[in-house]
């Protein structure tokens, strides 16, 4: 469908990629990965026709429509959310207008005139086309998409300029999804989405009928949606099939292969050179030497790609706090009469890394603010433990920075003495994506995202022992996230954080607090454990729910009047299974003994026929044993399951 061949692009003096060959077929689901500044966005823009190539060929059929979602820098105004979304159907709306105009004309001209005939003909054509292109369901389509992206019905009539940047982004995404271009280009669409909206988008992409290219720093998202990965690395593009996880595996395999090939080639070259040098001056061997020289010239040298820099940084550790870090006893919080949560009781211990999850507006940030002491509680008691020093990283953290200072000076002024080395400081800044001349920038010229990033870095350099992080991973790329993740994993203090990055939560959290509809729930373990526990809770709830009309069913002869359980276990069946289970155990032991004796008999040779008979016997017994073991395992599993169920029912 779309083909790039030998494509080349420079950015100023820097070459982004060279010799890039890429074919996108109509149903490709591609994840585009690579570090910051490797040209992912530029490549998307080229595909979207917004940037030219510096060299090479870009070919696409005429009817291909590409839709590009930029990372940021959008500003919408003058229309309501719904109007803005419907504006993508400009041509259909025009048809609708024309239809309306024609109905007016119909009323005005004489039905017997030619003019009327012309009008009705036109009306018929337009109405047919309008209906054929689902013109009548535009609002329904827009509503579905907006709802999926988290807009409430009341938001649809809000003017777009009243929305924050993140929500404007969602409007732009909704518009793009409505157009359904043949090639969807998404540049970090998940940056501004909460978990719910991400899950929705993930599902939407899975059902998307055409091709898409997705740039994302959310591994879960990539894992769940794409079936190909294109990696931009070292000015080259490498293509992998499969999702992100398979890409990582393939990549390491490919590197190992490349290294082996490089080693082999190196050895071959050395061998050839040795031969040439040894026999160069022997007239009898001149011909052979010449051919070796030619061979050497023909070898296409394998170039090992530069090693990807893995950045490791040891951040200083904070002073130790008391064992109990914070305690909530029956805390409630309400804003202007609206209750956010109530009856919240928990204890945070030293070393806990707690992820807060819940939909937007559930009260995660409020909880963080209460912990930070910047919001009072409405009822209940809240106290911090001994020697606990709180540091709160809010979305607008950068306001506390000195706008006139240069980054490198500012860092060296706060860095602990162990880190005073300038190279080290620059590495550190590099970890957080401030490279080359950027370190000499003044803080005031940094963008919002960059300032946030810098504020995060400052926080890690002088850590307090209780960190409260609100969306720390926004604006960080995969590598920077890893640096942050590693730093926080090794952090000896206590962390409470809000993040919409599932991978980040999964790797960091040791406890999950869920806030949902004013209720609070504490789960131990990481994000995956949380999902599992939640599933189990819903399962158990389902189990406990009574089937409708169960009280009236003929078999509900329970004396206490408790209705029949849906998953009631048949005791006769269980008894039979137990008997069989025990019988099998005995039989297995018998069979094993039998095999052992037969094998020992085989050790002493009597006659050929006898040996053959014994071998066959052993084989048969082995097979039987395998079958019995399989059955025994299955039975054990079923019995365990029924035990679990009955204990649940008892409780």
């Amino acid at each position, binding site marked *: 469908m779309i083909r790039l061949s030998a494509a080349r692009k420079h950015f100023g003096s820097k070459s982004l990629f060279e010799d890039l060959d890429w074919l996108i077929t109509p149903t490709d689901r591609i994840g585009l990965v690579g570090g910051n500044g490797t040209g992912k966005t530029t490549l998307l823009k080229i595909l979207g026709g917004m940037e030219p190539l510096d060299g090479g060929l870009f070919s696409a059929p005429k009817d291909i429509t590409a839709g590009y979602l930029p990372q940021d820098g959008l500003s919408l105004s003058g229309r309501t959310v719904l109007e803005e979304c419907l504006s993508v159907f400009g041509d259909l709306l025009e048809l609708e207008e024309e239809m309306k105009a024609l109905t007016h004309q119909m*009323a005005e001209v004489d039905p017997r005139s030619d003019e009327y005939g012309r009008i009705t003909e036109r009306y018929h054509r337009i109405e*047919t*086309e309008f209906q054929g292109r689902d013109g009548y369901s535009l609002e329904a389509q827009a509503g579905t998409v907006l709802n999926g992206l988290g807009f409430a019905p009341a938001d649809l009539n809000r003017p777009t300029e009243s929305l924050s940047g993140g929500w404007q982004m969602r409007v732009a995404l909704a518009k793009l999804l409505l157009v359904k271009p043949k090639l969807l280009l998404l540049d970090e669409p998940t940056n501004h989405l909460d978990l719910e909206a991400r899950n929705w988008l993930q599902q939407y992409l899975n059902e998307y009928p055409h091709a898409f290219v997705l740039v994302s720093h959310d591994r879960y998202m990539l894992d769940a949606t794409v079936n190909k990965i294109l990696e931009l690395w070292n000015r080259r593009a490498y293509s992998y099939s499969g999702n992100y996880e398979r890409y990582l595996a393939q990549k390491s395999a490919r590197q190992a292969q490349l290294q082996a090939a490089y080693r082999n080639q190196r050895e071959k070259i050395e061998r050839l050179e040795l031969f040439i040098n040894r026999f160069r001056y022997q007239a009898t061997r001149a011909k052979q030497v010449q051919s070796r020289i030619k061979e050497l010239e023909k070898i296409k040298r394998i170039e090992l790609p530069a090693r990807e820099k893995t950045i490791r940084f040891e951040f200083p550790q904070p002073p130790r706090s008391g064992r109990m870090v914070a305690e909530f006893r029956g805390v409630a919080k309400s804003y202007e009469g609206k209750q956010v949560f109530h009856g919240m009781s928990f204890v945070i211990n030293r070393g806990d890394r707690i992820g807060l999850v819940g939909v937007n507006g559930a009260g995660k940030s409020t909880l963080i603010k209460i912990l930070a002491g910047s919001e009072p509680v409405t009822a209940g008691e809240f106290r911090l433990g001994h020697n606990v020093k709180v540091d709160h990283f809010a979305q607008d953290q950068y306001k506390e920075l000195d706008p006139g200072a240069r980054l490198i000076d500012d860092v060296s002024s706060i860095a602990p003495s162990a880190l005073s080395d300038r190279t080290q400081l620059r590495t550190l800044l590099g970890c957080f994506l401030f490279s080359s001349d950027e370190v000499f920038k003044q803080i005031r010229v940094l963008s919002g995202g960059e300032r946030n990033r810098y504020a995060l870095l400052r926080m890690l350099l002088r850590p307090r022992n209780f960190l409260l992080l609100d969306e720390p991973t926004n604006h960080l790329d995969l590598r920077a996230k890893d640096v942050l993740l590693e730093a926080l994993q090794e952090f000896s203090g206590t962390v409470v954080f809000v993040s919409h990055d599932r991978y980040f939560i999964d790797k960091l959290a040791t406890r999950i607090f869920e806030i949902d509809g004013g209720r609070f729930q504490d789960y131990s373990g990481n994000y995956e454990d949380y999902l599992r526990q939640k599933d189990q809770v819903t399962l158990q709830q389902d189990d406990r729910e009574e089937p409708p009309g169960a009280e009236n069913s003929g078999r509900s002869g329970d004396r206490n009047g408790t209705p029949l359980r849906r998953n009631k276990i048949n005791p006769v069946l269980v008894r039979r299974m137990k008997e069989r289970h025990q019988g099998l155990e005995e039989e297995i032991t018998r069979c094993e003994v039998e095999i052992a004796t037969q094998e020992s008999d085989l050790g002493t040779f009597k006659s050929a026929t006898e040996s053959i008979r014994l071998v066959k016997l052993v084989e048969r017994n082995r097979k039987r044993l395998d079958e019995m073991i399989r059955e025994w395992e299955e039975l054990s599993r079923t019995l365990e399951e029924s035990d679990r169920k009955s204990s649940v029912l008892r409780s």
Partner: protein
Amino acid sequence: MVKTSKRMARAREEIQGQAYPLQAALPLVQKLSSAKFDETVEISLRLGVDPRHADQMVRGTVVLPHGLGKSKKVCVIASGEKQREAEQAGAEHVGGEELVGRIQGGWLDFEALVATPDMMKFLGRLGRILGPKGLMPNPKTGTVTFDVGSAVKEIKAGKVEFRVDKTAIIHTPLGKVSFDGDKLLENARTLIESVMKAKPSAAKGKYLRSVFVCSSMGPGIAVELTSLDK
């Protein structure tokens, strides 16, 4: 996996997955109908057109000689004496601009809508409501006309509108299972003829690809295309 009912399985067994001539297929539909009500006999025609192109759209109306076996509720939006004409023709709901207001309020208790050209200017804003249900009047299908009397009568007599859907198939009713075999056959032939006449000039290749008939709750029965030429 959707479970096939015993009733359906029996019916399918009888068909044996083969195609029948139209004159045999319709009696078979009647024979296999086993629901507890008078089922509608339906026909589906797959056409060799690409409905994404406006010039390959197949759409039209046809008055079936023996009707559909049920009368449609007709609503007429007209002014002055045209309202009386409509009432005389037997329209269930007759009114002027005030009906537009009611429809906007969510009232849709009718199956066909006829309007006079002078009232169309009020109907323009109802597109989002009427369009999805296929009720929007259209001069080409005879639902925008000053001759409301005959329009209502035609609809009552069994005028059906057909149009290809996105997958290039036309689905329309032909009558009831309780009809005489000949009546159904005649209705079917009239409809197919009218669809053949509506063949757009832009259509390429074979026009009528396949035909199936069925009852509301019965299995689909393939029709031999060669039997249609007779």
